[in-house]
C-alpha cells in the first residue's frame, strides 16, 4: 500500500516536471493550446521532445541535474524548441565590463609579440629580434 502511494506520487511529480500538460479537466482547451493552431498535436510532441533534449544538453554543459527539470519547465514551448536547436549558437551573457581589459591586454600582447618578431611596428619601444 505504502509502496503504491510512493509510486503514484513519484509518477505524478514526474509528469508535472516534464511539462506534459496534465488535463485539469478533460475537456477544457488549455491556454497553451490556443497558441498552437492547426498542428496542435505535432507541436505538443515536438515541444515535449525538445524539453527532454534541453535537459540533457544542460546537464552535459555542467548544470546541476537537480536544477534542470525546474529550469526547463519554465521555458515556453517555442523557447524550448529554440534552445534545443541552437544551445551552442545562442550568446551566453557572462563577461563583465572589466573583461574588456582582458581583451585589450591580449591584443597588446599579440602586437608586442608581432612587433618583436618584426611583423609589425606598433610600439616605439620594441626592437625586432631579426634585423
Amino acid at each position, binding site marked *: 500500500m505504502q509502496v503504491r502511494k510512493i509510486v503514484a506520487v513519484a509518477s505524478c511529480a514526474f509528469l508535472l516536471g516534464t511539462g506534459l500538460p496534465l488535463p485539469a479537466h478533460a475537456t477544457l482547451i488549455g491556454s497553451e493550446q490556443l497558441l498552437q493552431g492547426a498542428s496542435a498535436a505535432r507541436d505538443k510532441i515536438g515541444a515535449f521532445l525538445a524539453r527532454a533534449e534541453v535537459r540533457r544538453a544542460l546537464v552535459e554543459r555542467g548544470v546541476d541535474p537537480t536544477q534542470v527539470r525546474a529550469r526547463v519547465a519554465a521555458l515556453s514551448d517555442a523557447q524550448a524548441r529554440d534552445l534545443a536547436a541552437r544551445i551552442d549558437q545562442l550568446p551566453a551573457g557572462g563577461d563583465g565590463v572589466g573583461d*574588456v581589459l582582458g581583451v585589450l591586454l591580449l591584443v597588446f600582447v599579440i602586437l608586442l609579440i608581432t612587433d618583436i618578431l618584426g611583423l609589425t611596428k606598433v610600439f616605439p619601444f620594441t626592437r625586432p629580434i631579426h634585423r
Partner: protein
Amino acid sequence: MALLLAGCATPQVDALLRRRPPDLPAAAASIQVPYFAQKDHQCGPAALAMVLDAAGDSVAPADLVGSVFVPAREGSLPPEMLAAVRRRGRLAVELDPDVGAVLTEVAAGNPVVVLQNLSLPIVPIWHYSVVVGYDLSSKDIFLQSGGQKAASIPLRTFERTWARGRHWAMVALAPGTLPASQQPDQIFAEAVALERVDPVAARRTYRAITLRFPRYPQAWIGLGNTAYAQSDLEESAIAFRRATQLAPDNGDAWNNLATALAALRLPCDALAAARKAVSIGGPHAAEYTKTENEIDASACAR
C-alpha cells in the same frame, strides 16, 4: 571596409533622433535599481536581481545562479533569463528588437535587461546590462550592470553594442503590470508561459490584459482557464462568455464556456454552448465532441 562601416551604422537611433515618436518622452530620469557587483561571469544573475527588485522581488544574484548559469558556456542564455523571471512569479516579456521599445519601457518606469556584445564579433564579450534612463537631447542612455553602477554612454554606442547582441531585450514585471510597448498577442504568449509555472500570477496578468485590451478574446479565455483551475467557476464562466461574445467563431471559447457551465450545474446552457463549439469545429473538434458527450443533458429538451 563596407563590412566595417556596416558595423558602425546606427539606423534606429538616427531615426529616433530625427523624429521622436510623439508618445515617447525626450528623457527619462534614472530608475532606481539596487547595485549588485558581479562575480565571475555572473552578469546574468546580477542584471536579473536588479530588475526583479524593481518588480517587487528582493532576491540576491547568488540565489539566481542555479536558475540561469550554464557552466560550460561561462554565462547565461537569453531564453533562460526569461524563464528565471517566471520562476519568481513575475511576467517576463521579450521586447521587439527596436530601441524605441526599450526607451518606451524605461519611460514607463520599467528597467530593461539588454544583451550587448561589448567587443567585436570576432572576439565577442557578451554582457547583460540594465537600461535605467535616457536623454535624447544629450543622446545618452544610462546603463547599470554587474560590472558598473549606473553610468551614461552615447545612444549610438549603445545601439552598436546592442545590435551585436542581436537586439535582445526583456522586462520583468510585477503580476498585474503590463509592458508599455508590446502588442496583445505578444503579451498573451508571455502570460501563457507564466501560467506553466505560476497560474496565480498568470491569472492577474490575463486580467490586466482584459482591462487594457478589452476586445482581445484570447486574454478572456486565459482568464477563464486560470480562474477555473483555481476553482473560481463564476469568474471563469463570465470570462469565457465574454470571449464568445467577442469571437463568436472561436470554438475553444464555446467549448470552455460549456465546461464551466456544466461545472456550475447549468447543464442545458452548457449543452447549448458545447453544440455551438461542435458546429464550429477546427483542430480541437474531438475535444468539443467529448465535452458535449460528458454533459448530463437528461433534463434538457433535445
